[in-house]
């Protein structure tokens, strides 16, 4: 009886949609109870909870995504909404245009070069190596870049998301350790190196940081699209 209900539910969208939202609500609650520690990042906890459940129940990612796509879809409108913090920070943006643009070029180059050089040194090669190049760029753009330079788009998508979670976990302790306190610099670097997940993390910390993270994400998508083929040619 229970297995009948379970198999009926798991074939539909509702149970996986509910699980996605539920895992996130639970993870955020835990995060608040833990005193909002960086290592308890709700994105990571929710992803691990859901993926663990899928593995235990032997559910494929495709089946899961049929339910979760309704949440996934909202990423598009949410990205458009980043115009609101962008607009409220226009004055701030004008004041910091020069530091911001130079930091963008430095961040984009370091993100690609360090990943490719280190991966090569560790013996990773071929399509895997190439798929790592756009790892700091927001997923839809990274997939396009990966296709163009000869990587595996779906593998790139996985690298992008793991990079985002790593960025969200390390950005606060790292920037505290190296003494960067300006919210614009902190947020911008999170957006450049860890795209939307870094941006989501920045909004958890400070409004200005979140706004600059969104700008960093958008600008790095553009710059890495242009630079990736040249950087790859330089490495190979």
């Amino acid at each position, binding site marked *: 009886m229970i297995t009948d209900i379970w198999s009926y539910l798991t074939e539909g969208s509702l149970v996986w949609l509910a699980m996605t939202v539920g895992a996130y609500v639970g993870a955020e609650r835990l995060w608040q109870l833990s005193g909002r520690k960086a290592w308890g990042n709700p994105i990571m906890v929710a992803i691990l909870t859901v993926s663990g459940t899928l593995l235990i129940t032997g559910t494929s990612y495709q089946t899961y995504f049929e339910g979760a796509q309704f949440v996934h879809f909202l990423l*598009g409108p949410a990205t458009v909404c980043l115009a609101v913090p962008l607009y409220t920070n226009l004055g701030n943006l004008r004041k*910091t245009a020069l530091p911001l643009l130079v930091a963008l070029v430095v961040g984009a180059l370091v993100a690609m070069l360090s990943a490719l050089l280190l991966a090569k040194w*560790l013996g990773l090669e071929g399509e895997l190596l190439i798929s790592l190049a756009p790892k700091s760029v927001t997923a839809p753009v990274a997939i396009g870049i990966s296709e163009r330079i000869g990587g595996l788009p779906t593998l790139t998508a996985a690298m992008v998301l793991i990079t985002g979670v790593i960025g969200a976990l390390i950005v606060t302790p790292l920037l505290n350790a190296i003494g960067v306190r*300006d919210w614009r610099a*902190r947020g911008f670097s999170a957006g450049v190196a860890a795209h939307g997940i870094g941006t*989501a993390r920045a909004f958890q910390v400070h409004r200005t940081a*979140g706004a600059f993270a969104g700008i960093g994400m958008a600008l790095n998508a553009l710059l890495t699209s242009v630079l990736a083929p040249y950087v790859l040619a330089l490495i190979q």
Partner: protein
Amino acid sequence: MIRPFFLILCFQLAGEVIARGSGLPLPGPVLGMALLAASFLAWPALFARLRDTANGLLAHLPLLFVPAGVGYIQYLDLLRTDGWRIMLVLVASTALAIAACALTFQWLLRLTRTEEDTSA
């Protein structure tokens, strides 16, 4: 709530159309964001109408990454064999990129004598 959401969808749609039509290497939603920010400059009343809905959606931004994030499970075999190398690359490279970007930003803020923003 539904009208602001409709407007936001229209900007996304316009972004998609421009992205496809122009061949720019940017996703539709990112172009939609730029279009919406430009529209706020032209019509400040639009900002007042969309602000609350936009902030409401952005408040739950982390949730929206969960479905895509779970996608790593398609690569468990690869992660089992090359996982430690990949993780080492991603952790080191992400840390270097954040540090280099933030330090450059801060250094230039000081060089151009721009006031730092460290408010609570």
